[in-house]
């Protein structure tokens, strides 16, 4: 069970906002890059982040560039999981491939600071502060297996292939 405080973002948050191009030179230094996670969407994001917090968003979260760094910096900033009304495709894949659960549910009514829990097995997100419960369809087996292995590299190593 994943449990944490909601950190809410709006619609159309691009990977340029999550991991700005001006920090391109820091891509070889992920811990340093992660200090700027989501900086252009919320400049205090990293400062206020507690380990285990849940990043929540609206439509098309992670749109734009394929930079996997966008998913990585959110994970390194301490997020336990990302939930959104809708993810951009490459960002969604990247989350799964680095072992960061990404769940599509309606986040309407959620606010930053709400206490929430995500039950991957039961397929439910509970906003404990607001008393909202939203279900999501189980991810395909392959994706769950990759998440369980902690990401695609581990999965391939454990299974000697895809």
């Amino acid at each position: 069970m994943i449990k944490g405080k909601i950190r809410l973002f709006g619609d159309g948050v691009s990977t340029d906002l999550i991991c700005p191009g001006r920090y391109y030179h820091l891509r070889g230094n992920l811990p340093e890059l992660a200090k700027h996670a989501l900086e252009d969407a919320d400049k205090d994001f990293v400062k206020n982040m507690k380990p285990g917090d849940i990043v929540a968003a609206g439509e098309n979260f992670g749109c734009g560039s394929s930079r996997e760094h966008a998913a990585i910096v959110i994970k390194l900033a301490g997020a336990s999981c990302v939930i959104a009304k809708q993810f951009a495709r490459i960002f969604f894949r990247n989350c799964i491939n680095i072992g960061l659960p990404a769940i599509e549910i309606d986040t309407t009514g959620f606010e930053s600071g709400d206490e929430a829990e995500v039950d991957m097995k039961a397929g439910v997100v509970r906003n404990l502060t607001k008393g909202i419960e939203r279900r999501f369809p189980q991810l395909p087996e392959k994706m769950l297996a990759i998440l369980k292995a902690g990401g695609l590299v581990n999965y391939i190593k454990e299974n000697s292939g895809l």
Partner: protein
Amino acid sequence: MAETLVKKIISSKTGKKVQTGEIVIMPVDRAFCQDGTGPLSIDGINKLGIGLKNPSRCYFFIDHAVPPPRAELANAHKKIRDFAAANKAKCIMRGVCHQIMAEEFSSPYDVIVGADSHTPTSGALGAFAAGFGSTDVAAAMSAGAVWLRVPESLGIELKGKLNKGVTAKDVIIDIIGKIGADGATYKVMEFFGEGLKNLPMDGRFTVSNMTIEAGAKTGIFPADETVRKYLKSRGREGDFRELPASSDADYENVVAEDMSALVPMVSCPHQVDNVAAAQELGDVKADVVLIGTCTNGRFSDYEAAYELLKNADSLKTTLIIAPASNTVLKRLSASPMFAKFVDLGATIIPPGCGPCCGVHEGILADGAVALSTANRNFKGRMGNPESFVYLASPLTAAATAIKGRITDPREFL
């Protein structure tokens, strides 16, 4: 009902008839990365520890920051060069990855996995070409495959013919305006219809390139006579294989696009689906014009811009010319356009991404307005969240550079 183009390719490569929504393990024909995503792919490959499955079909591009503006990036380039050399893979630093893939490698039916979101550019050649993250590309290079959900396809029926002053760029901006920046998320955009014959190869590259801006997995054109001729012009006719489209394929939905009804379009800040006709924009002063990138940095794009620029004595904006490849630069330098652009004070930068992704060679000032022929105008895209990026065709870009405000190019034609 016929299979969609993408299902035809997936079925032929996996050797079974696939169903929409199923997850398949997809064998990969070509895999590539660039200097922003490559170092992470290399880390993944090293962790996997099984080397490269097919080194001659792995391409390591250095294009986003060439030549490197800082030591950290020079070191990233060195890491890429050393890795490619040690593993007998190709390391290429002579243009934007998508343009080089199209010119030299991508072929119909290819499954192409690129660690860059504009990989769909090669879809114009009838390839299944999609953008992935670094780890996916590491898997593609080492294990020779990626996991993939068989996508739905959105059929885009092209009709009619473009009017003077209107280009393929306006077609795709208009389509994205209609379906939205997430209108094709997880789906493939497949182009068919009688209008296809009126869309030249370079225009198709522009269209496929921007399908990701509607969230698409890829944008694919049938491999037809136009594709065959293009491959022939590149000395690669042998790579051609026909991939015909059918109007009755199992598209999830069909969007009709009448090209003859279009006018020059502009994507306004900070979302690509925030579109308007150039003539209705009002008075938008521009500071910088960028003509180039993987979207519109081909020779024919400069020819289009030159139509307007050849009669200009001076420009009212900064003009940056970013040719998409060394081949384009070479042709440009051998044409009268080159001297004219230089005389007009344009900065001609090395083949590569240039200022498109905000790393170097044209970062915008606070409050500055750029009219760019690239594909993306997210806040901060060109290196400064306090600036504004508009997207349009090379024609509109040229008209804007002359007038100093965003201008419908038909004023000059």
